[in-house]
C-alpha cells in the first residue's frame, strides 16, 4: 500500500469533481433541497383536526362537551350547528376529519347516553390518531360528569381511582421535526454517496484510462481509497452542513457527544461511498450505475431505516431485511445522539454493524476492480 499513489489518485479525483459543476452542484443542492422539503414541509404532528359538531340537544351538558373540544388545540371546530348532510359533505370534500353528533336526549340519557363520532377513515393514520383524541376527550368528560353526579348524591368528593401520569422523555414536545431531521441525515448521505460515486469508475472504462491505470503499479485498493477519499471530502462537507442546519435552523436539540457523531458518520459515509463505487465498478456503465445506485441506496434508506416508518411495525420478513440496511443503524445512532444523548455504551452494536458493512462492501468493490480486461 503506497500513500503516495493514494494521494495522487485523490488529487486527480478531486480535480475531476471541482471541474465538473454537475457533481459539485448535486453535492450542495441535494442536501439543501432535502432538508428544506423534509424539515419544513413534512410534519407528522396531528394538530387542529377540523370537525363539525351536530348538537341536537343544545343543553348546558352538550355545550360543556363542545367546550371541551373547542378548548383544545388538537381540534378545530368549524361549526357547532351542523347536521348530517353538512358532516357528510365536509368529510367527502376533505374539509373535516370527523363529525360529532350529540343526540337530542343527551341530557336525559346522560347516565347511560352516547354520542356519535363519524370519522373519515380514508387516511387511516390521521383517523386513528383522531379517534384516540376524540375518545379521550369524551372519556374525560364522562368521568367528570360521573364524579359530579356522585358528589351530588353522596355529598363526598370523589376522585378517579387511577390516573396515568405521563411524562415524555426525549423530545418532550413530541415534535415530529425533532426525529425527522436527525433521521434525514443518513438518507441525504446515502443519496449523495450513490450519486457522486456512480460516475467515478464507469468513465475510466469508457475513456480507456482504466487500462492505462492497470498497466501501472497501482493496486485496486489504492485506486479505490484515493477515489473514496476525494468523495469523502464532499460527503463530510454535506454532513457538517446538514448538522448545522439541524441544530441552528431547525433547533433540534443535540444532546450527545459530537465525537461519537463524527466517528459514526465517518464509518457510515465510508460504507455508503463504497457501495456506490461497488455499483459503478460492477456495472461499468454510467447510466446503469446511476440508476441502480440511486434505487439501491435511496429506497432502503428512506423506507427501511426507521427514518419515518417505525421498523417495529413492519411485517417479520421486512423487519428481518432491515437488518441488512446500514442506514437503519445510522438512523438509530443519529436519533440516539440527538434526542437521547446516549453514546458508545448503548449503541456500540450499531457502530459495529456499520463497520462490518463498510469493510465488506469495500472489499467487494476492490474485488470488482481486479484487472480483468478481455
Amino acid at each position, binding site marked *: 500500500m*503506497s500513500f*503516495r*499513489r493514494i*494521494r*495522487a*489518485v485523490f*488529487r*486527480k479525483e478531486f*480535480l*475531476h469533481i471541482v*471541474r*465538473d459543476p454537475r457533481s459539485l452542484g448535486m453535492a450542495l443542492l441535494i442536501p439543501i433541497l432535502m432538508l428544506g422539503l423534509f424539515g419544513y414541509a413534512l410534519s407528522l404532528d396531528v394538530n387542529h383536526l377540523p370537525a363539525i359538531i351536530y348538537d341536537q340537544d343544545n343543553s348546558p351538558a352538550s355545550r360543556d362537551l363542545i367546550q371541551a373540544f373547542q378548548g383544545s388545540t388538537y381540534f378545530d371546530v368549524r361549526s357547532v350547528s351542523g347536521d348530517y348532510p353538512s358532516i357528510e359533505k365536509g368529510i367527502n370534500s376533505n374539509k373535516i376529519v370527523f363529525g360529532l353528533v350529540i343526540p337530542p336526549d343527551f341530557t336525559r340519557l346522560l347516565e347511560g347516553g352516547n354520542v356519535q363520532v363519524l370519522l373519515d377513515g380514508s387516511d387511516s393514520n390521521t383517523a386513528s390518531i383522531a379517534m384516540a383524541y376524540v375518545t379521550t376527550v369524551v372519556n374525560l368528560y364522562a368521568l367528570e360528569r360521573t364524579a359530579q353526579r356522585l358528589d351530588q348524591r353522596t355529598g363526598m368528593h370523589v376522585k378517579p381511582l387511577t390516573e396515568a401520569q405521563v411524562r415524555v422523555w426525549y423530545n418532550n414536545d413530541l415534535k415530529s421535526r425533532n426525529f425527522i431531521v436527525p433521521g434525514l441525515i443518513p438518507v441525504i448521505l446515502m443519496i449523495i454517496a450513490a450519486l457522486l460515486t456512480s460516475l467515478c469508475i464507469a468513465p475510466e472504462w469508457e*475513456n*480507456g*484510462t482504466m*487500462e*492505462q*491505470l*492497470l*498497466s*501501472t*503499479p*497501482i493496486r485496486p485498493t489504492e485506486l479505490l481509497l484515493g477515489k473514496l477519499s476525494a468523495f469523502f471530502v464532499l460527503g463530510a462537507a454535506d454532513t457538517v452542513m446538514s448538522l448545522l442546519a439541524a441544530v441552528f435552523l431547525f433547533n433540534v436539540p443535540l444532546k450527545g457527544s459530537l465525537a461519537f457523531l463524527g466517528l459514526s458518520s465517518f464509518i457510515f459515509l465510508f460504507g455508503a461511498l463504497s457501495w456506490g463505487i461497488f455499483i459503478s465498478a460492477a456495472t461499468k456503465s454510467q447510466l446503469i450505475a446511476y440508476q441502480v445506485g440511486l434505487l439501491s441506496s435511496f429506497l432502503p434508506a428512506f423506507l427501511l431505516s426507521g427514518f419515518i416508518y417505525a421498523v417495529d411495525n413492519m411485517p417479520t420478513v421486512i423487519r428481518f431485511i432491515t437488518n441488512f440496511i446500514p442506514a437503519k443503524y445510522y438512523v438509530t445512532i443519529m436519533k440516539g445522539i440527538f434526542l437521547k444523548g446516549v453514546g458508545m455504551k448503548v449503541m456500540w452494536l450499531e457502530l459495529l454493524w456499520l463497520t462490518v458493512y463498510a469493510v465488506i462492501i469495500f472489499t467487494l468493490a476492490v474485488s470488482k476492480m481486479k*484487472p480483468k*480486461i*478481455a
Partner: protein
Amino acid sequence: MPEPDAVVIDKLVKRFGTFVAVDNVSLRVAKGEIFGFLGPNGAGKSTTIRILCGLLGPTSGQATVSGFDVATQPELVKRSIGYMSQKFSLYGDLTVEENLDFFSGIYGVPKERREERKSFALRMANLEERRGELTGQLPGGWKQRLALGCAILHEPPILFLDEPTSGVDPIARRSFWDLIYDLSAGGQTIFVTTHYMDEAEYCHRVALMYKGKVIALDTPRAFKQRLGAKSMEEVFINEIERQEAATA
C-alpha cells in the same frame, strides 16, 4: 556474459473462446532495441502487448519482461514498463501538468526526482508552453506526445507502444518517431505496434503478425533484400500472400 533480453516470449497462446488471438508466438527482443510489430487490424498485436503488460493472462506459453514472468509477477512487470494504449487515455479535464503529476504519483517517482522528470517530459513532448492547458483541448499529435511523456516519467527500461501514432498527421508522426529514437539511444527498449508501413522502416527489427502468428521476423533491410522489395509495404503484401498460399 551477454545481457539478458528485455522481452522473451515462448510459445505464447491466447484464446478467447474458440478464437485464437495469439497462436504459438515465440520471439526475443534485445535491450535497447526498437522492435516493430507489424500487421493488419485483428492480427493479435494488441493482445500480445496487453499480455506483456500484465493486462491479460496468457492461455498457455510463457513470457518474461525485464526478467519477470508476466503471468506470475505482473506487479514487478508493471514497475519496469511504460505503456501507451492505442486509445488516447489521459484525463481530458486535467491540464498537461496535472496529468504528468498524476502519473508521476502513481508510478511512484521519488519526490526529489519529480520536478526533474516532469520538466524532462514537458521538454521532450515540446509542451512546456502549454503545461497549463486542458489536455482534452490539445491537438491529436500533442496528446500522443504527452501520453508518451506520461509513460516514461518513471524511466522504465521497456516501453510498449500500441499504435501510438494512429490518427495523427504525418508530420506529427515523424516528430513522434524522433522521440522514440532519442529514447532508444538512451538505452530504453521499445516495443511498438503499427500498421503504417513507413514506420516499420524506422524499427531495428520487425515481426510480421498475421492471424495470430508471427509469419516473418527480420531487419527491414534484410526483408527488402531477401524479397527484392523497395518498401516494407511490398514486403508485407508479399509475405501475406505467401502465407495465404501455404495454408490454402
